[in-house]
């Protein structure tokens, strides 16, 4: 059942041209929500594969929102799967590092959940209101606001412990 919401992306006439316009924004969003081990372009591509598999982009009311939701779900699935695997390894007592780490001051952002990263990014960086953030993340405005609050809290904690 679809909830009627205001589209936040233009109508698709020419898919190639539309995607060229939407790509920078979609890739930036993918870079934010994707786990550190996932290339943002791979996440965009995976989301596109799923969306194209259901029919043409032009049939969607709001392709950008649909792709953002799909990317968030895919990123969350990957993270959840990884955590289950990690718990299994913990039970078995095997040695496995908690997360691949890279020498970057942004590495800690990987500890935030994809939904939190997405909510903070869309609201604080892109300046979108929460009802629009909710449309892009596929949740209620209250849940988007809550995710942003938690994301900011986590960010503050991470920033405090940085030297």
């Amino acid at each position: 059942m679809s909830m009627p919401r205001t589209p936040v992306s233009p109508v698709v006439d020419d898919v190639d041209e539309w995607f060229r316009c939407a790509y920078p924004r979609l890739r930036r969003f993918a870079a934010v929500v994707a786990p550190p081990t996932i290339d943002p372009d791979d996440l965009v591509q995976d989301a596109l594969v799923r969306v194209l598999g259901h029919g043409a982009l032009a049939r969607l009311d709001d392709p950008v929102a649909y792709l953002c939701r799909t990317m968030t779900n895919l990123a969350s699935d990957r993270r959840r799967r990884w955590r289950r695997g990690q718990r299994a390894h913990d039970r078995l007592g095997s040695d496995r590092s908690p997360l691949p780490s890279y020498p970057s001051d942004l590495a800690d952002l990987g500890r935030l959940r994809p939904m939190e990263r997405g909510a903070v990014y869309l609201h604080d960086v892109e300046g979108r209101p929460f009802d629009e953030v909710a449309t892009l993340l596929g949740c209620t405005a209250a849940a988007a606001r809550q995710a942003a609050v938690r994301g900011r809290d986590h960010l503050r904690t991470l920033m405090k412990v940085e030297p």
Partner: protein
Amino acid sequence: MTDPRHPLDRLADRGQPRGADEVLGAARASQPASPARNPKVWAAAAAVVVVIAGALAMLRDDAQTTRVQTVDDPVASTTAPAPTTTPTTTPTTSTPPPVARPPAKYFGFALEAGIVAFVDHGDDVTVTEIGGVRGEESETSLAVDASGVVFHHRAFTGCRSDIVRTEPDGGSAVLVENAVHPALDADGARLAYASGSECTPDADLLSVRDLATGTTTTVPVGDPDDGLPWRITDVEWIGTRVAILANQVDGQEPASQWVTLWAPDAGALRFDGQVSLGVGDPSTPGAVTAIEPAPGDAGSILLTRRAADGATTDVRRLALADGEETTLFTVDGEVGAFAALSLDDIVYVAVQPKVDFVRGQIDTVRRRIGDDDVELVEGINSVAVPAA
């Protein structure tokens, strides 16, 4: 010099972009060949299905491993192409529907191929298949009424799942809603189900539809305190109320399980209490995987709870007043679905990861009467008892 931008703004620029054309081209190249758009692929697939179904039929005849007698020709009813996954398509069947009436007292089953079967309660187990209902994946659920009308949830690849209604003669299959977990009330007059804002498996909307008038009442389910959504993983009628098995979702992480109750009241669904089931989600050890009404007892609910080590599953009775759980019986392995005629007569799907080069994992339906536990039929993934 430190970059003054927001850390997530900087994170958004990570990596070297491959470019729109390359990403879109790769996505198109990754598209699986869609049988729905290629008649030749359909023909080949149908031929393969005929061969496999024939082989299976021969194997079953040879092995005599079950007491099932198939009334209709299973080969003929599995040769039609599955419905397309196009969201606007109303499911139909292209084979002449076999005329079948359910026995006076029966269980409804969804077979692996999405075919619904009726099995008589009596000792002479007879499967009558109807061909109008088809699923594409094994995750299915059923609701049946006394006349054999079937509401069947079938999952598509990706986010879409539909509930379809099929008449007992198999003559029509009508899309009811893009939703999951159909449940009929005791009169067979109202259908409860769960749906999602986009991705049906992530259902967080509960609906009740009056089947006579078509009037539908929908309510978003979520934590009344912080607004975080619940994910609905099962729906059942408990007397005049609707019970849902839900995960409270913290961000995207399943945090805890609840049974919450909803009372249809003057055109609305009113929250009517909840019982905590502990931490987990249906895929984790120790968690509750399904709920069912407790026959004759609107103050209790039946549930299946996996053991912490995952080796066994309990069928339990949960008192809604105090949350106390009483184990009725324990089975080895997982229980995929179950239905109760009484507290002493429960039919369940035993999921056994049995290695079989032809059939792979084999689910069997077993019936537990008192301490007796007998196999009814195999190759089943869902079971239901009809509304009165």
